[in-house]
């Protein structure tokens, strides 16, 4: 029972009310406790809300009926009344709504809306409210307000003068639900003498009120301009137009035209254009023409009709309309063609605004080209073509310049990238974003002095631009590193001093401080060196993280043995001091993910082995799949596959089905080399890809695919998985079915897993027979083991052990 209740609660929490209802019905049947009944009613109310949100008011009403109690009230009274009203049962809606007057059964949040809805329903279909009600009760007071409202409305409709309506209105309390009616009628009788006051009175009616349509109709009919422009693009309803015509006493012809206009507007763009063109003489010519131009993209087949009424369109206007129409029809080739015609038409003009317009169009087409491959352009990259066109027309548009620089960079058009970055820096000397691009361009082409010049200009504009400071510090550290590697510690020191100029006193750079310490060591200033080094280590996070960072810098610089010994000793001491935390391991891993460090992986990899024990302790921490990627990448980069295997093994004990951990387990097994994957492992990974794709976990799917695709000679992509699966164990009839080369490759890989030294150790430790079993077990886990029958593998294991035993006996002899 508890399980049913828990499941029902979970279903409610997830919004699966249908399931919750089924579970709770069973629960109530088993044990009709009031709390289960209560929960069931909640579930029905939830179901009703979701049904009503889909427009299924009939079904929502049925669901709410199930929550009804003895007096007929339901769980969500406002929703129930709304459902009835939506279904056109206004009388029934009122009869239900009136039950709640004077009760506290309507939640406070919806009480005001419920009250106004009840009032509006009563005005539409007035019925006699319980006459027995005590006049001092809430229902009695409501009935009095309702009567006053009805009398006021009747007096206004009958055309009675304002002084007769005023006393009736004053009988409607301002706190009653009929307040909107009082405000509207007051506004209408005030309008002839004080339109501004009339408009102000209408502001007291909310946009969600059932009186809002009437309020809008009054507002539209009032003379003078509204303070607030109409934000709601919904055209006035027929009733609103009719109201305006009636209260203003419009002539029949005008009213007829208005009615036709409203009808046409509701029928769509084509009908509206027919109306505008056929009544062009009665309408303001400019507005009618402009309205038609704006409607044409939605009905381009009316182009001729519009041209015959208002004259031929200019080339630009015609092309623009056709381009917008083509976009609406998803005809991207035609859209491109028409936009180009429009842009060329404006480009020819000497008017500066026309050139800006051409720029707008080209940028728009460049944007479309990013998402619609049908847009071809004239060169190799349509986005680049059109952005270039936009800059020819409008060279001062900075976002387009930045975007084009970015595209040149990503597309590998280095010459264009550098040219545009340089030109832009000249053209926009006050724009930090442009100057930052110029810095990057200068660094990329090794124009160091230029980069410094641009960086200084950025800092003059924006003294706290940390990005440019960091970039310059990194650049100079990199120079210093090169000097230090060439044993020119003096020049390296100078470079680091230059780098220090970019540093902000309140944001010191750990890496700079560490490098200064290391170079000072090479210059023989050990005391200063150690002080700087320790400060740098502290800035880098202290402990293992800080000393590891210092060791990485030392390795990259190829620092001396003396400083290396200190670093090694400190790193050992730091590891003993405290157990690792996830944050510390992640800091180490993220430090290793720097692009330059990745390139220097050969120098850095041994450092990971220095903190091996510390990292091993971290394997037992409860890592999530998202956290672990940088750590696993670091281990992969360092070739620490045994550690990677430990991390994956312990994680799989916690979450046995996690695809990420399974990937890393396989990756560790094949030492990061996808070429060494056995058929079974490939199958396992491809199954993981399929599972990940099925649950829309595309990150994991891509990660696994990237690993699989790192096999150079295999077809790429998920679609070709089956192609790469190669000869599967199931499909092999005999060993002869497999190519000899393939067998050799597999043997080589498999035997690498069990080198002779290992076999020798196994024989010494376990004896011949048990060593054969152990070797057999190892070989069975290799690609060969998965392909061949166990008898064949056993023969290979026996041969391997025999050859070692033979060697051993010979040496003993």
């Amino acid at each position, binding site marked *: 029972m508890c399980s049913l209740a828990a499941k029902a609660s979970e279903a409610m929490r997830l919004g699966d009310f249908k399931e919750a209802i089924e579970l709770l019905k069973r629960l109530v049947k088993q044990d009709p406790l009031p709390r289960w009944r209560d929960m069931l009613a909640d579930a029905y109310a939830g179901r009703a809300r979701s049904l009503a949100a889909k427009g299924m008011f009939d079904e929502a009403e049925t669901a709410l009926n199930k929550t009804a109690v003895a007096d007929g009230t339901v769980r969500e009274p406002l929703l129930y009344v*709304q459902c009835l009203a939506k279904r056109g049962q206004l009388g029934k809606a009122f009869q239900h709504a009136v039950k709640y007057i004077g009760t506290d059964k309507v939640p406070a949040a919806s009480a005001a809306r419920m009250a106004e809805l009840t009032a509006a*329903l009563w005005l539409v279909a007035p019925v006699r409210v319980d006459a027995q009600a005590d006049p001092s009760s809430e229902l009695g007071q409501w009935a009095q307000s309702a009567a006053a409202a009805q009398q006021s409305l009747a007096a206004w409709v009958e055309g009675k003068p304002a002084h007769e309506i005023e006393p009736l209105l004053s009988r409607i309390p301002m706190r009653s639900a009929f307040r909107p009616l009082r405000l509207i009628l007051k506004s209408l009788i005030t309008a002839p003498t004080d339109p501004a006051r009339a408009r102000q009175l209408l502001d007291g009616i909310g946009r969600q*009120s059932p009186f809002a349509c009437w309020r809008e109709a009054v507002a539209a009919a009032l003379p003078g301009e509204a303070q607030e422009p109409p934000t709601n*693009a919904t055209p006035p309803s027929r009733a*609103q137009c009719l*109201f305006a015509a009636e209260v*203003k006493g419009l002539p029949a012809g005008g009213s007829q035209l208005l009615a036709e*206009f409203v009808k046409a507007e509701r029928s769509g763009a084509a009908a509206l254009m027919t109306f505008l063109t056929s009544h062009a003489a009665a309408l303001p010519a400019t507005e009618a023409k*402009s309205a038609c131009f704006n409607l044409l993209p939605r009905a381009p087949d009316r182009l001729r009709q519009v041209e015959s009424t208002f004259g031929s369109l200019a080339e630009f206007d015609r092309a623009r309309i056709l381009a917008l129409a083509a976009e609406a029809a998803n005809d991207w080739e035609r859209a491109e063609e028409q936009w180009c015609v429009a842009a060329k038409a404006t480009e020819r003009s000497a008017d500066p605004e026309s050139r800006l317009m051409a720029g*707008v169009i080209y940028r728009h087409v460049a944007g479309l080209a990013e998402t619609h491959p049908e847009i071809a352009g004239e060169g190799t990259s349509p986005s680049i073509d059109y952005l270039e066109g936009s800059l020819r027309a409008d060279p001062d548009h900075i976002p387009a310049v930045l975007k084009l620089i970015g595209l040149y960079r990503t597309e590998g058009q280095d010459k264009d990238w550098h040219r545009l970055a340089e030109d832009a820096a000249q053209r926009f000397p006050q724009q930090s974003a442009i100057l930052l691009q110029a810095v990057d361009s200068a660094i990329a082409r090794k124009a160091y002095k230029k980069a410094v010049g641009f960086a200084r200009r950025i800092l003059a504009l924006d003294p706290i631009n940390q990005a440019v400071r960091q970039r310059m510090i990194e650049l100079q550290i990199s120079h210093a590193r090169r000097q230090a590697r060439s044993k020119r510690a003096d020049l390296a020191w100078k470079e680091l001093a230059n780098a220090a100029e970019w540093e902000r006193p309140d944001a010191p750079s750990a890496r700079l401080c560490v490098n200064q310490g290391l170079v000072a060591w090479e210059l023989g200033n050990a005391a200063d060196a150690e002080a700087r080094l320790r400060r740098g280590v502290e800035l880098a996070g202290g402990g293992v993280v800080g000393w590891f960072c210092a060791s990485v810098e030392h390795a990259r610089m190829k620092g001396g043995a003396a400083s290396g010994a200190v670093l090694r000793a400190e790193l050992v001491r730091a590891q003993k001091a405290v157990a690792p935390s996830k944050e510390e391991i992640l800091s180490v891993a993220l430090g290793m993910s720097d692009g330059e460090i990745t390139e220097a992986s050969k120098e850095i990899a041994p450092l990971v082995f220095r903190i091996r024990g510390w990292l091993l302790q971290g394997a037992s921490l409860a890592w999530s799949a998202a956290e672990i990627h940088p750590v696993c990448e670091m281990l992969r980069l360092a070739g620490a596959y045994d550690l990677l295997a430990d991390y994956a093994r312990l994680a799989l004990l916690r979450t046995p089905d996690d695809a990420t951990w399974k990937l890393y387990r396989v990756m560790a097994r094949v030492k990061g080399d996808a070429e060494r994957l056995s058929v079974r492992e490939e199958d396992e990974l491809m199954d993981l890809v399929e599972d990940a794709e099925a649950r829309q976990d595309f990150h994991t799917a891509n990660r696994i695919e990237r690993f699989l695709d790192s096999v150079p000679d295999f077809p790429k992509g998920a679609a070709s998985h089956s192609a790469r699966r190669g000869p599967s164990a199931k499909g092999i009839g005999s060993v002869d079915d497999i190519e000899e080369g393939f067998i050799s490759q597999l043997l080589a890989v498999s035997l690498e897993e069990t080198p002779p030294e290992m076999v020798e150790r196994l024989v010494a430790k376990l004896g011949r027979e048990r060593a054969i079993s152990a070797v057999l077990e190892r070989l069975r886990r290799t690609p060969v083991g998965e392909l061949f029958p166990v008898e064949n593998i056993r023969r290979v294991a026996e041969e391997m052990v025999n050859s070692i035993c033979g060697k051993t006996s010979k040496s003993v002899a």
Partner: protein
Amino acid sequence: MSDPFSTLGVGEDADDDQIKQRYLSLVRLFPPDREPERFQAYRAAYEALSDQRKRLETKVLGTRDAALGRIKSHLLAPSKPVCARASKTTVTALLIDGIDRACGQDGTA
């Protein structure tokens, strides 16, 4: 987004200054703390018209209903003050429209 010219209530030939003045006056009338949704609509419209290039983008790449709105105003032109009365049927129709709209506004019904 709906036509930003109509939202702000400015003409298509309004310049930077006119647009800014209109936007500021609307924000004063409907401050964000009291009318957050309206403020957002005005802000978005102002962003779309705040400089010449953006206005051109709005004009060239979009379609606008401002002219239709002006035609509607023309048809409703206040040739006479609001002194006549509407029929009970029209008022009832307006209330029914209002009830229908109010019942479908909160995303539930």
